[in-house]
């Protein structure tokens, strides 16, 4: 199985490092401003009971976001 490359594919309980946040989209600026910039550690805490959104932990804070937005965030160094 290939390692996940997007935050939206990261299973609950796993962590990774953000590699890219798709640029040139002003709507993603807010995600950056909440701390999701390249180089940041991120962990998926859980998925909502209906599958979406996902809850993530970044810089010690908990945030929930939808798959379609998390799909714009590329990740590396996936660890269980």
């Amino acid at each position, binding site marked *: 199985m290939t390692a996940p490359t997007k935050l939206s594919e990261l299973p609950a309980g796993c962590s990774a490092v953000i590699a890219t946040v798709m640029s040139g989209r002003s709507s993603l600026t*807010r995600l950056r*401003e909440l701390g999701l910039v390249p180089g940041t550690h991120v962990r998926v805490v859980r998925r909502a*009971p209906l599958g979406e*959104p996902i*809850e993530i932990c970044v*810089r*010690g*804070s908990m945030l929930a*976001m939808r798959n379609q*937005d998390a799909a714009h965030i590329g990740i590396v160094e996936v660890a269980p």
Partner: protein
Amino acid sequence: MTTPAMSGPAMEPLLFALVGNPNCGKTTIFNALTGLRQKVANYPGVTVEKKIGECFSQHGALMRIIDLPGAYSLNARSPDEAVLRDVLLGRRADTPRPDRVICIADASNLERNLYLVTQVLELGLPAILVLNMVDVAEAKQWRVDVARLSELLGIPVIPMQATTGKGVIELKIAMSKADLPAPQWHSAPLPTEIKAALQNARDALASTGALHEKASLLEPIYLLSDHDPSHTGIGGEHFIHIRERRRNLEERFPGWEDRFVSDRYGAIEQLCAEVLRRPHTPQETRTDRLDRFLLHPVWGFAMLVVVLGLLFYLIFRVAEGPMGFIEGVFNTLGERVQDKMPPGDLRDLIVQGVIAGVSGVVVFLPQILILFFFIGLMEDTGYMSRIAFIMDWLMSKVGLNGKSFLPMLSSYACAVPGVMATRTIDNPKDRLITILVAPLSSCSARLPVYGLLIAAMLPDETAGPLTKAGLMLGMYALGTGGAFFFAWLFNKGVMRGVSSPMILEMPDYKMPALKSILLHMLERANVFLKRAGTVILGISILIWAASTYPKDHDLTQKAAQITSRIDALRAVNTDAGATELKTAKARLAEVNSGLLAHSAAGRAGHLIEPVIKPLGYDWKIGIGLISSFAAREVFVNTMSVVYSVESDDENIQPLRQRLRDETHPDGRPVYTPLVCLSLMVFYVFAMQCVSTIAIVRRETGGWKWPLFQLAYMTATAWVSSLLVYQAGRALGY
């Protein structure tokens, strides 16, 4: 006693601005500082609330505090954030630039909160940093080196636990200081070439008037990164120049905005490395343990059902008592006035217009107070985010988000508190759509109407209670379906604007601050009475006048005669008199019916008959529709008057019978099952509620949206009822 230099009697009181992320406890601190010495207004031109309060310094000098909207960044993404930016930059003509800033950071989310804090500190205003929720941070085993943080930022740093009031005194002492230092913080220096470009942009914008001449370099940064022309503070003609400059900058330095964000977080990471100690492996906290249960696929839903069940019980059942009490008090008051005053137009105006109108406003208070207490509790404990987290998937299917769920649900009790509850939705587009569709939830005022029409439609002999309940449920389902459909439709086409990513903070659970919740409840009640109540009262009186005037002279006299005869018969109270009393009452009812038919509302019933005839209604039903525009449940009472029967909400039997007996001039029954169904469908969709219109006007800041709502809902009601009636006719019913 020496007076500090800054607060001499001739000086204006110092203006402090409270600034912080959403959920950082800002409002609790504002309440702790000002108590009841606060007032709520609106920033002109936007639907953002402006809260200003007062308190006294340690030296007894008056200080003013403005509670600015919560925000994540000065790079505005919503009208709330634009207001924050514009006030801090001194760009709003209606609000003076604050003298000092109190930055509030949630210590348990320190790194993220420092993003806005550092942006604000760079503006150069003297500042204090409050580290709120130190208890929550401690529970996560986070240690903040307060002294070092204060040294690095160059400003006082005050640890606080606002829910218990710990740290409030220390904050007041810091606020009272005569000279507060300007912050020492500077984020990474701007790259030289970008700096030069920004200087260029600033000069160009200053020459067009979009910026004033002395603006710092930060001002063009925040204006150039604002992509939404609807944000006030940037006039249309200025926006063209700003967009031009932005395109310029973007071409030369692609991704310059993103670079600023990364640089700032780089600086914050270095700062946190010095002042924040976190355990290497995250510790399991109370929040983790609770969330495992409350967000569990099975138990999470079960708990949600229990919580929402409780909410329904509170706003349907518990509110009933105080609501009945309020109506009782106003009824008694009306009767007193009726007895004391001589009969005449003035008495009718006071009793039936004013007293009944005020009663119709005040009666909403129990539901509003209960709902806002509940919402305050949910928000303060952190459970509100969990409700949104669980329901987001469902709401996303129609283009809304999880935060729309609770306002829509509350609207099943009453759309007025439901619309008020949309303030918790921070995305302006989602909030507007939620407001527009909320009144489609079948509220409790529709119940008496459904009840009467179902009773008239299905005789007890042929239909069991199950059929009736099923029909009732069908009406609820129809309204809910309509709400989802229109939410989807508005989201697809009608509403423009960039869709921003749905981001939901999941705060740690904590104990609620009761004082703050109670203050919030009172504030909402006050806003409702002042801003919506006056409109509701005004329209109620108009509708009363329309169903009273013009008066038919003969009928009025007749009514007076019969009334005095009835009084006389009541006074003697004999067996012989009882029969006459009965006939007299019946005659009075007939006369009243005649008076109503003669009034403006009665004539309007005739006037709209051609429009409602295709739906299966006659002019008498038209009168009911017009008078129940004030409030849906009025339909029952109006129809009692129209058909001159003594009937009300509690006892619909006589009216039901009368409806079944009612025929057209040619002998066909008026209230066929099909007409009843068509009429019910009309009430499902029609915006027959003055109070909702008034509150929507208040919450959207103008008449545009309530009128749009009135138009689309009435049109939907008409078309749906037409379809039901004509399809039913075609099928032979």
